[in-house]
């Protein structure tokens, strides 16, 4: 029941949520650049990705996307804390 675990920013206290930022074609496919998600204790990046993949357009996300926690690269097993900023990064193409 994805509806139970989704909560947008307006209804979630910052203390128990994580901001998920999307970029490039991830943002394009999911039609949003940001989701604020309620966080369960022990949630990892991979847990959040699994939930996002259930959204319309969410299959653009690989199971292990490139990601960053609080503006530093991190792995999918990284544990998230309330207030964290998690960014899901499409393949980089700078330079």
């Amino acid at each position, binding site marked *: 029941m994805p509806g139970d675990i989704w909560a947008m920013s307006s209804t979630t206290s910052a203390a128990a949520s994580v901001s998920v930022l999307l*970029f*490039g*074609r991830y943002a394009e496919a999911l039609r949003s650049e940001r989701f604020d998600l309620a966080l369960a204790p022990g949630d990892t990046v991979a847990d959040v990705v699994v939930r996002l993949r259930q959204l319309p357009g969410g299959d653009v996300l690989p199971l292990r996307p490139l990601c960053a926690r609080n*503006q530093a690269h991190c792995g999918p097993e990284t544990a998230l804390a309330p207030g964290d900023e998690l*960014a899901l990064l*499409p393949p*980089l*193409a*700078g*330079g």
Partner: protein
Amino acid sequence: MNVAHLVTTPVDATRLVARVSAPERGGIATFIGLVRNHHAGRAVLRLEYSAYGPMAEAEMARIVEEAERKWTARVAVEHRLGALDVGEVAVAVAAAAPHRDEAFAACRYVIEELKRRVPVWKKEHYADGSVGWVDPTAPGGSVPAAGGTGA
């Protein structure tokens, strides 16, 4: 002094060179990346760079710091964002060091790490009207983007 920037105005390599120059540094290596008129066999008309801004600048600053520590060099880097035409400068790196070995190594390190680690994305507009997200991991080098008018 912060010398790792995202900019929306033209990148000027000469300005970066001036920032890293000093009387004790005899060698300056630079790299300038320009928008090419082709990519993976397709004619490119123009492109758009976007970024995860705060992280991109933070990561660029970390890379600069690593290079400066590793080679006793002084480094400056700028990456352009927004719409660019063919021939415009997308990125420039300048690395100054007492000798050229260190200058080349530091310059090369910064551009390689930037490509590997800095969250910047590139949308290409092709001559056939289609639009693609550049993706070095994809078979054709890009995946279709929304907003194309062609194939």
